[in-house]
C-alpha cells in the first residue's frame, strides 16, 4: 500500500511538472471558463443556472481526451513500459496512478469553477454539494476511463491528438453545454448521446442525480475498464 501511495504522490508531482498537462488540466479550461462565463451569462442570463456544469463538462472533456491520453501513451507506447516490467513494476501501476492523478487534478480544476462561478458571474451554485461531487466523480471516472482506452490503443502522438479531438469536439458541441441539445437535428442529438459528456452534464444538474442519467456512465466506465485491463495484459509481451 505504501508503494502504491508513494507512486500516486509521485505521479501527482510529475503531472504538476508537466507543462502540457498544466495547460490541458488547468490553464485552458479555466481561461475558457473566465471568457465563456462572462459571455454566456451576459447574452443568455439563464445560463447562470447551468454555467458550473457546462464549464466542468468542457474542462473534464479537455483533460480526459486531450491531456491525459498523451501522458498515458508516453508511458505505454515507449520504452518506459519495458523499464517498468524489467524492474519489477506492475504494468497496471502506471495506468492506475496516472488515472488517479488525473482524477485529482481535474477535481481541483472543477472545484475552482464551482467556487468561482457564483462569485464572478452570479452563477447558481450546486444545491447539494455532496451529491454534485458524487455525480462529478462518476462522470469524471467514465471520461477518464475512455481517455485511458484511447491512450492505450493509439500510441502515435499525432494520431492521438486527432482521435482525442474526435471525442472532445462532439462532447462539447453536442452535449448541450453550449445550447440546448433539443435544438439540434435528431441525428446530431443521437450522436451526442454516445459521449459521456451528454449524460454527465444532465447527471450534475439540479435534480439530475437519477438512474436514467447514471446507467450510461456506469456502462461506459465498466466497458472501458475491461478494455483497459485487456490492453494492459496484452502489452506484457509486446
Amino acid at each position, binding site marked *: 500500500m505504501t508503494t502504491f501511495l508513494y507512486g500516486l504522490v*509521485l505521479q501527482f508531482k510529475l503531472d504538476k511538472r508537466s507543462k502540457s498537462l498544466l495547460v490541458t488540466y488547468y490553464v485552458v479550461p479555466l481561461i475558457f471558463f473566465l471568457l465563456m462565463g462572462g459571455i454566456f451569462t451576459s447574452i443568455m442570463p439563464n445560463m447562470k443556472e447551468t454555467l458550473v456544469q457546462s464549464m466542468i463538462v468542457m474542462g473534464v472533456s479537455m483533460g480526459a481526451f486531450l491531456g491525459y491520453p498523451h501522458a498515458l501513451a508516453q508511458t505505454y507506447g515507449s520504452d518506459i513500459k*519495458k*523499464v517498468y*516490467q524489467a524492474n519489477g*513494476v506492475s504494468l497496471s501501476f502506471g495506468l492506475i496512478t496516472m488515472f488517479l492523478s488525473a482524477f485529482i487534478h481535474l477535481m481541483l480544476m472543477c472545484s475552482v469553477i464551482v467556487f468561482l462561478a457564483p462569485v464572478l458571474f452570479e452563477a447558481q451554485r450546486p444545491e447539494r454539494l455532496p451529491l454534485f461531487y458524487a455525480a462529478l466523480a462518476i462522470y469524471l471516472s467514465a471520461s477518464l476511463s475512455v481517455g485511458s482506452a484511447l491512450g492505450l490503443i493509439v500510441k502515435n502522438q499525432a494520431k492521438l491528438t486527432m482521435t482525442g479531438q474526435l471525442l472532445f469536439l462532439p462532447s462539447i458541441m453536442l452535449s448541450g453545454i453550449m445550447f440546448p441539445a433539443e435544438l439540434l437535428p435528431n441525428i446530431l442529438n443521437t450522436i451526442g448521446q454516445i459521449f459521456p459528456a451528454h449524460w454527465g452534464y444532465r447527471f450534475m444538474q439540479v435534480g439530475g442525480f437519477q438512474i436514467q442519467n447514471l446507467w450510461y456512465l456506469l456502462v461506459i466506465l465498466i466497458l472501458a475498464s475491461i478494455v483497459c485491463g485487456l490492453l494492459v495484459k496484452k502489452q506484457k509481451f509486446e
Partner: protein
Amino acid sequence: MNEAIKVTNLRKSYGEQVVLKGIDLSIAAGETFALLGVNGAGKTTALECIEGLRKYDSGNIQVNGKMGIQLQSSSLPAHIKPLEAVQLFAKWNNAAVDNTMLEMLGIQDIKKKQYTQLSTGQKRRLHLALALINNPDIVFLDEPTAGLDVQGRASLHEQIRLLKSQGKTIVLASHDMAEVEALCDRIAVLNHGEIVFCGTADELTETMGKKYFIHIKTSQGGQTVETDNIGDTLLSLLAELKANDLELLDIKVDRGTLEEHFLEIARRNNK
C-alpha cells in the same frame, strides 16, 4: 559448474522471420559472459527471452537467481528525478536503497535534474542503478556503453568490474570487441540466430588458426602482411627492406584483434 543460466534449444520467430534458431547457452554463476553479434543477429531478442520480457516459441530457459536488467533502449517519465525513480523501484522490489551504490554511480550528483535533462551517460548510470536496486545475482546489460564518451565508458567498465568482484553473474550484449575483450570471461557469437562460437577470447583466436599480422613502417610508408609462418615471412621482409635500402621505423607482430576474428566468423557464416 554452478549454472546461473541454462538455455536449451531456444527458438523465436517474428511472423515468417526466424530470429533464434534453437540456441543453447550455459552461463556459470559469477561469470562475465558476452553475447556478441552484429545488429539484427538476435542478441536483444535472446536476452529479452531469458529475462522473461518476451515470449518465445519453444525451448527451455532456466535462471537461478535474482535478475537485474538494464535494457538497450530505456526511458523513464520525462519529469522524474533520479532519486525519485530509485525510490519508486526500490519500493516495488521491497529493497532498501543502497546509498553507497548510488554514490559510486554518481546518482547523488544528478539528483536535482529531471530525466530529460540528463546526458546519455547519466541516463545509463541511472538505469544501471535501477537494475542493481534489488541486489541481483545476475545482471543483464544490453549494449551498456552505446552512445557514451570515452570517460563514460571507462567509468561504466569500472562499475562492471566492481560487480564482477562482488561475485555477480554478468551477461553483456555488445558489439564493442574491446569492451568484451577487457571485461568478459567467455563469449558467445550469435549470427543469424545461431550460436556460431562459444568460448574464451583465446579459444576464439585459436579457432581462427595460427594466423599472424606483421605491421611494418618504413621511411616509405606502412604495410600489414598476413602470414601463418612468422619466421620465414619476417626474414624475407627484412631482406627485402635491406635490398631496397629502406629504413625500418617500426615493426609489430600480433595475432589479430578479437574484432577481426569476430568479423571473420561472421563472414564465414554468411557465405
